[in-house]
């Protein structure tokens, strides 16, 4: 049975934190199919908040409102926490930035990956470990047996991120939100991890939201890019060259490019952008 093409529909999603007047996410709308969608924007522009809002993982202090927030054709916001739990890690997953902090430091890698299997599949411990081993092998970890016995601080960052991916993609989710999955990694392993992620997502026929502030990396990797500025989506691009919005253009220009050396980098003209993006 072919899955419906639209994985996620977001209309006018707004997130506000208690005691803060500003909306962290402000009227964001987009559709996600089985594609790779990049979300870029500077720090604090609401990227992570958007991702977590979709996962319903924001703290209770956050108020999430939306005209529509449908996952696989069914609304998300009205679901109970219990229903959400059965979705999370199963039908939708979140891959986080830094494996050093997002893996539990006192549990072995194997245990943490196996937990993902235990939580959503009615299987025993043994099978869960077998599943975990299988998945770890899929993310090209050699010597799986040994690695499963290790603690997070005993493996490298790149490996940690693979473990994270294995853990989150074990259940072949429909929707994968990757929140800066590579920004804590070395450039040299960054490519590998992205490639792996891409491969798995394709295979599962899932939709991927890749959150990053590295616009060039996102451009190279994703089919579509949402550019966020102060909680709003200011532009949707398929190619960097098409960028119209001054913020996007400024962002591109601010990145040093060794192939096009300049003496001085261009900086953002924030007042001009803010004038263009009036806040309600």
């Amino acid at each position: 049975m072919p899955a419906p093409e639209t994985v996620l529909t977001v209309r006018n999603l707004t997130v506000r934190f208690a005691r803060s007047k500003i909306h962290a996410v402000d009227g964001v709308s987009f559709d996600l199919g089985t594609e790779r969608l990049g979300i870029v924007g500077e720090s604090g522009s609401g990227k992570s908040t958007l991702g977590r809002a979709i996962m319903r993982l924001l703290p209770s202090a956050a108020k999430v409102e939306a005209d529509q927030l449908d996952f696989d054709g069914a609304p998300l916001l009205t679901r109970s926490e219990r229903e959400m739990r059965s979705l999370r890690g199963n039908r939708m997953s979140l891959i986080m930035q830094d494996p050093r902090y997002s893996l539990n430091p006192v549990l072995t890698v194997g245990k943490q990956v196996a937990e993902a299997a235990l939580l959503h599949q009615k299987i025993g411990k043994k099978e869960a470990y077998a599943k975990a081993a299988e998945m770890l092998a899929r993310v090209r970890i050699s010597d799986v047996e040994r690695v499963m016995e290790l603690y997070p601080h005993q493996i490298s960052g790149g490996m940690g991120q693979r473990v994270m991916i294995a853990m989150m993609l074990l259940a072949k989710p429909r929707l994968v939100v990757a929140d800066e999955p590579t920004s804590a990694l070395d450039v040299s392993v960054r490519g590998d991890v992205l490639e792996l992620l891409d491969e798995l997502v394709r295979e599962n026929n899932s939709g991927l939201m890749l959150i990053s502030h590295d616009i060039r990396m996102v451009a190279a990797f994703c089919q579509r890019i949402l550019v966020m500025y102060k909680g709003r989506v200011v532009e949707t691009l398929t190619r960097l060259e098409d960028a119209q919005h001054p913020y996007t253009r400024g962002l591109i220009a601010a990145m040093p490019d060794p192939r096009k050396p300049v003496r001085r980098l261009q900086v953002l003209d924030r007042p001009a952008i803010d004038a263009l993006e009036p806040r309600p």
Partner: protein
Amino acid sequence: MIEVSNLSVSFGSGERRKQVVKGVSFQVAKGETLGIVGESGCGKSTVLRSLAGLDRHWEGEIRLNGQPVERVRSREHLTLAQMVFQDPYGSIHPRHRIERVLAEPARAMKTGEGWDRVAPALEQVGLPAAFAERFPHELSGGQRQRVAIARALMLEPEVLLLDEPTSALDVSVQAEVLNLLADLREERGLTYVLVSHDLAVIAHMCDRVLVMKDGLFVDELDKSDLARGETHHAYSKQLFEASYL
């Protein structure tokens, strides 16, 4: 300006002794900007810290401005090179006002009052003088990094050691800080050693780049190599490819 020969640094002792920097040598000419790239943990910061005088258990020889320096620096030698740290949030005392942050170098060195030089220093890095009264948490990351740079310049060193000065910052802010560094270099004829893992930043700023791996320099690239994306070592090739994807 800087001459380093056969510098090695080890941490720990006994069985756990680990050599982090394994006998490297390099020179930096006056006014030059040297970049050091390499993956995390390869020893970049350690080299820099030894140059600055923060790590005291190095072996080999370091000469600054032609004078050999000891492991425990004298005050005069300290003023030769100052350092700017990666994390603008952690490198400024959270409970000192900016004026104190900037006045401290002069006061600690006992070279005059220091307070009256705060305003010009702020101006120099493009911050309003009114910022003197603020606490660090009242500044943004980019502004803090400017303050850190201003502080490093208070003792008028000839060498600035920059340890990933922009990696904690947004690209847009990064551009501002890099521009500032470029301007200062021009105005004062400063010598920079810039450590980063971001090749784009390195390439933008540096005249010459050393590629480091496991405590050794494996490659040296000059400006034209960088522009052409030319490398002389498999590792630097890999690094480049990853950065330009």
